[in-house]
């Protein structure tokens, strides 16, 4: 189990893990308040200023899984993996306009989750339930994938176990994480995010300086990567039956449509996730959010550099069974053991921060939008915090079980499908920030249509595929072809269907349900 262990790297790794464990527990005394109230436990009392929010949101959105998976796609097929960059470019102008409005109305009415806002705005408990269920469903596989990232770096440290012991390190890590999240709530990941983000920046800057130096500059790196892709394409063509490999330093024509639509759809989905909203609503003001839309792109830039690690791994001749091992193996190839341990610790902490925020976001959602309205309406804030803390434990155990019993490939597919589902609450949330013209029941039926269409599109012949050509063989109707000639991200196609349905039905189904918000609630001091 330990015979191949890289002792130096493992020691550094354990040191940083121990450090943040202490921080996680100490965090309960930071900005001291009564952690038995759900607003304090699950939203940090909405007292995080611009910089704390920057670290928390950065740590929360740019996860370990991202650090592993994006370069893995670049390593495997090249340019296509770079879709994460336009995705993160388009998101911030959009957030600049919308999120201060959501923050203001949530602050005014005490909303903590997407479901809270939807209920207050449309007065429709079923729409609230749909929004809440979508969030929890999409978050579960996302947390599980953080564990995959964690496991990749632990195996790169040289740990190998059989049977039950194979998952022992991540189980220990998750139990510790569960304990301090239980005690400190959102304060724990907020505090750990300082350490994690600083380490990620050090790791990435070192990597983009040292590795090109070792490999003879970026010119040589991209030339070597080009050769590797050419060899892959040739090998595919020579195989029987011939396989057409879509890989290269730029997008091949068939990839352009998916590249664009994946960026748009992913951007629309991201801030619908409970963990993204938790991070946003814990900010202390609309100004703190606006500040972050200008400063979070620093993480996007780093993400672009991280994506380049995939090209560097090709040039370094890193050979791996699964592309997801490319970054850990590149780190081992390029750095001395102690710094490799530092990098792995950075990636591992990159799993813990989002996993904590995601479990808190899911716990808040379950407590406020499922348990309270449907099981125990007379809950006090204290009782809410008891349920939320307990659910945060359940969610983490659930994620562990997913990793124990489900093939990784399936968890990955589920996460992709989660994005397709998550974007279906976009119309209710974002349109709702500007107008009450849409009715709750129309949005609910739109949501259901989007969920069905998105899931059906994903049900491909070979595997669950994220994109689909814009032509279908519909039951009863026959073949339909939009004639656009490109494939689109399923989430985007489905949410367009969702919006059209919601719009048409809103013409017919006018809602008389109460709206507890007024137009001025959406403006904060600055916008008013």
């Amino acid at each position, binding site marked *: 189990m330990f015979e191949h262990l890289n002792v130096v790297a493992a020691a550094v790794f354990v040191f940083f893990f121990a450090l943040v464990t202490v921080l996680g527990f100490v965090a309960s005394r930071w900005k001291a308040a009564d952690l038995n109230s759900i607003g304090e436990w699950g939203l940090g009392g909405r007292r995080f200023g611009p910089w704390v929010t920057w670290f928390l949101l950065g740590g929360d959105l740019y996860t370990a899984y991202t650090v592993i998976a994006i370069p893995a796609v670049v390593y495997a097929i090249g340019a296509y993996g*770079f879709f994460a960059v*336009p995705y993160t*470019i388009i998101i911030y102008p959009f957030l600049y306009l919308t999120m201060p409005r959501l923050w203001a109305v949530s602050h005014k009415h005490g909303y903590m989750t997407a479901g809270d806002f939807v209920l207050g705005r449309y007065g429709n408990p079923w729409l609230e339930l749909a929004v809440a269920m979508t969030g929890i469903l999409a978050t579960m596989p996302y947390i599980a994938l953080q564990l995959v990232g964690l496991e990749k770096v632990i195996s790169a440290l040289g740990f190998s176990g059989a049977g039950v012991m194979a998952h022992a390190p991540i189980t220990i890590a998750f139990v510790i994480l569960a304990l301090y999240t239980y005690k400190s709530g959102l304060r724990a990941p907020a505090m750990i995010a300082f350490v994690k983000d600083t380490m990620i920046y050090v790791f990435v800057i070192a990597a983009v300086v040292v590795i090109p130096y070792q490999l003879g500059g970026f010119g040589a790196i991209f030339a070597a990567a080009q050769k590797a892709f050419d060899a892959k394409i040739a090998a595919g063509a020579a195989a029987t039956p011939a396989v057409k490999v879509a890989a290269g*330093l*730029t997008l091949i024509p068939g990839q352009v449509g998916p590249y*664009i639509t994946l960026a748009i759809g992913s951007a629309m989905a991201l801030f619908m996730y409970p963990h993204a909203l938790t991070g946003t609503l814990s900010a202390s003001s609309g100004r703190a959010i606006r500040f972050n839309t200008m400063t979070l*792109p620093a993480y996007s830039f780093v993400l672009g550099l991280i994506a380049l690690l995939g090209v560097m791994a090709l040039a370094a001749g890193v050979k791996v069974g699964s592309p997801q091992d490319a970054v850990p193996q590149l780190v081992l190839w390029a750095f001395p053991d102690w710094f490799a341990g530092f990098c792995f610790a950075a990636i591992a902490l990159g799993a813990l921060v989002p996993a904590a925020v995601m479990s808190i976001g899911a716990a808040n959602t379950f407590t406020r939008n499922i348990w309270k309205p449907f099981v125990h309406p007379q809950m006090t804030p204290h009782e809410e915090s008891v349920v939320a803390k307990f659910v945060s434990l359940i969610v983490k155990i659930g994620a562990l079980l997913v990793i124990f019993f489900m093939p990784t490939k399936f968890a990955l597919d589920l996460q992709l499908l989660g994005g397709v589902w998550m974007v279906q609450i976009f119309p209710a949330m974002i349109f709702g920030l500007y107008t009450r013209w849409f009715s709750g029941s129309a949005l609910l039926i739109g949501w259901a249509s989007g969920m069905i269409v998105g899931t059906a599109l994903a049900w491909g012949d070979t595997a669950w595929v994220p994109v689909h050509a814009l032509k279908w063989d519909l039951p009863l109707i026959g073949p339909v072809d939009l004639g656009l000639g490109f494939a689109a991200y399923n989430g985007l196609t489905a949410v367009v269907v969702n919006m059209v349905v919601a719009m048409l039905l809103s013409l017919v189904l006018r809602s008389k349900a109460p709206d507890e918000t007024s137009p001025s609630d959406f403006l904060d001091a600055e916008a008013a």
Partner: protein
Amino acid sequence: MRYLLLFAPCVVALWAPLYNVVEPRAFGVPFFYWFQLLLVLVSAIGIYLADRIGKA
């Protein structure tokens, strides 16, 4: 003007055929990669300027 500053970089970012080329390179990095990285910075500056205009 405010909306132009916010959304012009988005339009460019989504117009993939515009930058889907290898040349010109910068420090050996193909255009596809360095242009998008540069665009991240440009878009952040765009938001900053839009914010300044909005407050004035």
